[in-house]
């Protein structure tokens, strides 16, 4: 392809010149004429808009920076191009991209597994915060620790894959947890059932959440022998490409079917406390039309959400991550009132978490976290 001094046919030269001109000028025209997107569902972030030209911004080099960002964000066919890159890299043998492994499921479908790298020091810090919080309370405190899909996929990862064993971390937490907190690791319940997790998202499915809630309530003696949780009947399946897909959006990925149970998610009242919003359902159906379907549960994560279930039972405080969002429809069956606190957002509030707990007169605290979260998150300090 490099300089062949021998002359290429004239038609070939015309074709090549035309390709290039259409490519660069067409790209420019598409940027100029095309409608700018405000938000990328794929990347879950607002996109840069056309920058304002001013002498100051040019002089400081800010204009050029903003323009570069704008062009990069609004590039025509951006999502398809990123998919193309993902699949070329896959063809080059890169089964690990951007923090996720891509494996073939038993059904032949592409499944994304998030890489897990154990951070013992952070785990120790986080468990320590949970412990010292629990030890100051005189009500029962339970920790439900949910393994992520990687815990059950280690043997399915590509050759040479580096991924720590979450089951080891779960054991490690067991050694740190102390006596006050009742520890309910879920690695036995969900064991080897990768279908408890979405193919393309880092969350668990409603079935996974139900199995864990059932097991917890049984083991903790809150649900009697013959009793069962109401069956989950997911309806209105929608194609769902989750967060892990967005990290490496292969064109060969098949979507998950996202379903929800309108009846189980009904409540007397769900209150988004800081937002001053109330509803008779845990669902925010507007997300059914968006990419991030999992956010149908409560519309995502909020500092404080209170659910008045209308059922008899205890009042509980739930310290949680997003895994808890789909589990609430099951736990709600056994409690009268649930207050969910997300420490990523519950900062500098009027009441500390323990003050809130006594103010509400809670009978129990449930901590529900997934292993990745406990391994990485740095917001547990807000418990103090």
């Amino acid at each position, binding site marked *: *392809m*490099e*300089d*062949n001094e*021998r*002359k*290429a*046919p*004239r*038609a*070939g*030269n*015309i*074709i*090549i*010149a035309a*390709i*290039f*001109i259409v*490519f*660069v*000028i067409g*790209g*420019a025209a598409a*940027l100029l004429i095309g409608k700018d997107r405000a938000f990328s569902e794929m990347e879950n972030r607002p996109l840069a808009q056309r920058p304002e030209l001013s002498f100051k911004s*040019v*002089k*400081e*080099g800010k204009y*050029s920076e903003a*323009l*570069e960002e704008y*062009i*990069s964000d609004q*590039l025509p066919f*951006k999502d398809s*191009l*990123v998919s*193309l*890159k*993902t699949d*070329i*890299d896959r*063809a*080059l*043998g*890169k*089964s*690990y991209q951007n923090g996720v492994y891509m494996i073939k499921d038993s059904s032949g479908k592409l499944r994304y597994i998030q890489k897990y790298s154990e951070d013992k020091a952070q785990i120790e810090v986080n468990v320590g915060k949970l412990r010292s919080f629990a030890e100051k309370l005189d009500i029962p405190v339970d920790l439900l620790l949910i393994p992520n899909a990687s815990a059950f996929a280690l043997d399915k990862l*590509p*050759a*040479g*894959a*580096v991924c720590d064993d979450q089951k080891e971390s779960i054991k490690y937490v067991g050694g740190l947890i102390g006596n006050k907190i009742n520890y309910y690791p879920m690695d036995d319940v969900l064991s080897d059932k990768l279908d408890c997790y979405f193919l393309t998202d880092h969350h668990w499915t409603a079935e996974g959440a139900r199995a864990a809630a059932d097991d917890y309530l049984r083991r903790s003696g809150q649900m009697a022998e013959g009793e069962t949780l109401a069956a989950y009947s997911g309806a209105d399946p929608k194609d769902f490409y989750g967060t892990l897909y967005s990290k490496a959006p292969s064109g060969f990925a098949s979507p998950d079917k996202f379903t929800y149970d309108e009846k189980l998610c009904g409540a007397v009242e769900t209150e988004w406390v800081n937002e001053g919003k109330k509803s008779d359902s845990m669902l925010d159906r507007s997300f059914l039309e968006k990419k991030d379907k999992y956010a149908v549960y409560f519309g995502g994560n909020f500092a404080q959400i209170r659910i008045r279930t209308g059922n008899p039972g205890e009042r509980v405080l739930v310290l949680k991550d997003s895994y808890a969002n789909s589990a609430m429809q099951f736990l709600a069956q056994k409690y009268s009132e649930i207050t969910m606190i997300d420490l990523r957002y519950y900062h500098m509030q009027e009441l500390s978490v323990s003050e809130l707990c006594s103010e509400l007169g809670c009978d129990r605290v449930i901590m529900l976290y997934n292993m990745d979260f406990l391994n990485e998150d740095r917001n547990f300090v807000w418990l103090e």
Partner: protein
Amino acid sequence: MLFSSTTFLFLFLSLILVCYYIVPRFLKNAVLLVFSLIFYAWGEPVYVFVMLGSIVVAYLTGLLCDREKHKGKLPAVSLILAIVWNIGLLLFFKYTNFFIENANSIMGLNISPFKDLKLPIGISFYSFQTLSYVIDVYRGNVRSQRNFLDLATYVTLFPQLIAGPIVRYQTIEDQLRGRKESLEKFSRGVKRFAVGLGKKVILANNIGALFDDISKTPQSELSVAACWLGVIAFTFQIYFDFSGYSDMAIGLGKMFGFDFLENFNYPYISDSITDFWRRWHISLSTWFRDYVYIPLGGNRKGKVRQCINIMIVWFLTGFWHGASWNFMIWGVYFGIILLCEKLFLLKGLEKLPRAVRHIYALFFIVVGWGIFAFDDTSKLIQNFRNMFGLGGLPLFGGRNDLFWIANNWILIVILIIASLPLFKKLGEKLTVKIPALYGCLIEPVCVLMLLIVSTAYLASNSFNPFLYFRF
């Protein structure tokens, strides 16, 4: 601005192509100049004035050092002025902080370095270019350029401005006025540009990510094999990155009617280090040959003097690459090998089978990149200890070894093939055998695919470093 960016492709290039081809002949250089200044000012608007200063100095000293027109001392004084200006700029911007820091640590001084002194991008390239212009005028090899606009166009010409090749004035003296754009040249330029873009964005960045990964891995997770894999990854990265830039520069030049000289000629097929330096960054090594080595006396003043000259040239070549010890070591390292080859080694090598000569050359090239890759001296030493089994690492079986190989072996095979002149030979054969099919279908499809795939990599904002910010 980088060639390997969507801003360059879809904003800058589309605009300049349109403007350049619609204006009449007498305005074409002006269009190039204006766009080149914008191109340069893009990231650092202020340093454009440093470059303009250099152009003014080159213009004036160029006029005054013409020995046919001016008698007496004027030409020599102007020449010295040009040298002082260019070397002074380089010393000031590139090496001041290096000298201060080393003076501090060696002599225990406490001079504070200039914190805000950033290196103007491309300064090493354009300083060498303007300098060669003035020297060539003084030597009578070229006539001085009376048209300021044309000289400014030459110096700022964006295709070669920030990462070379070092285009000599004498190469394009006639082209500044009398060049002819043609469809044939344009399409050749497109092909060359697409190949260069692909080399940089698809190959170099991809393997560069592996080097980056390995060099960030903690010592406890490494192995001897992994350290070699890292340096080999860098070997590929620097070649495909740098020669990719040169390809893009040459290709862009052709789109505007210029013919630059080649800068790389399959360096990794060399069978000696002497051979390697005839194939690697040719515009730099010939610059040092013509403006340092030969003026120092070259090989005309006896063996001892020649050896000293070689060492001076290679010390400077190394130092030119950046104000850091490792670049100096790298230059001296090659100086020593070249000296050995010149004195006795080449004669011995000739008797060996070809395969052995290639292994010999590749070994010293890769080890050289091992020096070049680490500007942190303690990391450099650690890496060399690791590579040669002194770091207490296992031979193989680091935590990520298998993963790195599984994820990159296909890429490495492609890189090896692309380092050989196979595609070039294949292209030459096909142009003869099936000219219509090759020229009208295969080549256009390849170009289109390279452009689209490169854009896909750019679109995903993946690893895309600029390696020459220290040059």
